[in-house]
């Protein structure tokens, strides 16, 4: 079973305590009424779905209940970093050299 590090609880916890919350850092448009339908659909539905490192929201739903963000490699399913909501996406070099992500 995958262990995921919750930055709020400060511990590694089994994957089943968590829910995936979709791609991270998708900012809601400041003025939605200024967008046309195509742009709004982009915001609502279009996600990057990369092969490799992706930033995602996760929620520790059966633990502290909080959302946080994580960098995960979609090829290996390895968590490279976890960070709190509102913090900037960590740069990958830092992430690959010592972040205490889940294993």
């Amino acid at each position: 079973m995958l262990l995921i590090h919750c930055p709020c609880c400060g511990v590694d916890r089994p994957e089943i305590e968590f829910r995936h919350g979709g791609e991270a850092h998708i900012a809601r448009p400041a003025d939605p009424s200024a967008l046309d339908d195509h742009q709004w659909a982009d915001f609502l539905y279009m996600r990057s779905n990369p092969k490799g490192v992706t930033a995602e929201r996760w929620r520790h739903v059966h633990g502290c209940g909080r959302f946080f963000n994580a960098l995960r490699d979609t090829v290996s399913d390895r968590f490279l970093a976890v960070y709190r909501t509102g913090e900037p996406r960590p740069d990958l070099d830092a992430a690959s050299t010592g972040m205490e992500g889940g294993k």
Partner: protein
Amino acid sequence: MSETALYRPALADNQANAEVLARPGIKVTRAGPLARFVFRGDAAAAGKAGGAFGAALPVAPLAANAVGARAALWQGPDEWLLLARPEADGEQAVDMLARQLAGEVAAALGDTPHSLVDVSERNVALLVEGAGAADLLNAHVFLDLSPEAFPVGTATRTLFTKAEITLWRLGDEAFAIEVWRSFAPYVEGLLIEG
């Protein structure tokens, strides 16, 4: 055995029903009713609530603070489970204590934003005790329950197979399971199966 005065076996008139499981090295008991609250608020609100409630709300993740017949369990960074046992037996005593505590906490908080929800009847507690307690729990709980990883005083929400519980380590060989009432038969059944 339990290092808190909070839990005791279910009431005398239910004594026959209090025992869920008794085997060498393992005992599972239904605990008597408690007044229970979910408190939510920031650090300032939590500080005031702890004073009124009679047990400080712990700031450290996964911590529980038991003081006499009161306990405050960290559930999240702005969320606590508050437990209190009345002096007298009976549901009526629980109800009276819950009203009293709700009033006192609300008075202490005043205009400080917070949420206090009475969940006294939402949860029931099961006490799992004995040398085999951790092993029995680990048939259904996916956490490392070694004393190093899960020391006495740790409390956390987690899963018991498919049911969400709050697991609190009361002693080296004693745990309390706080579980929603309708999930309790499921949890008890799985504990009996082992």
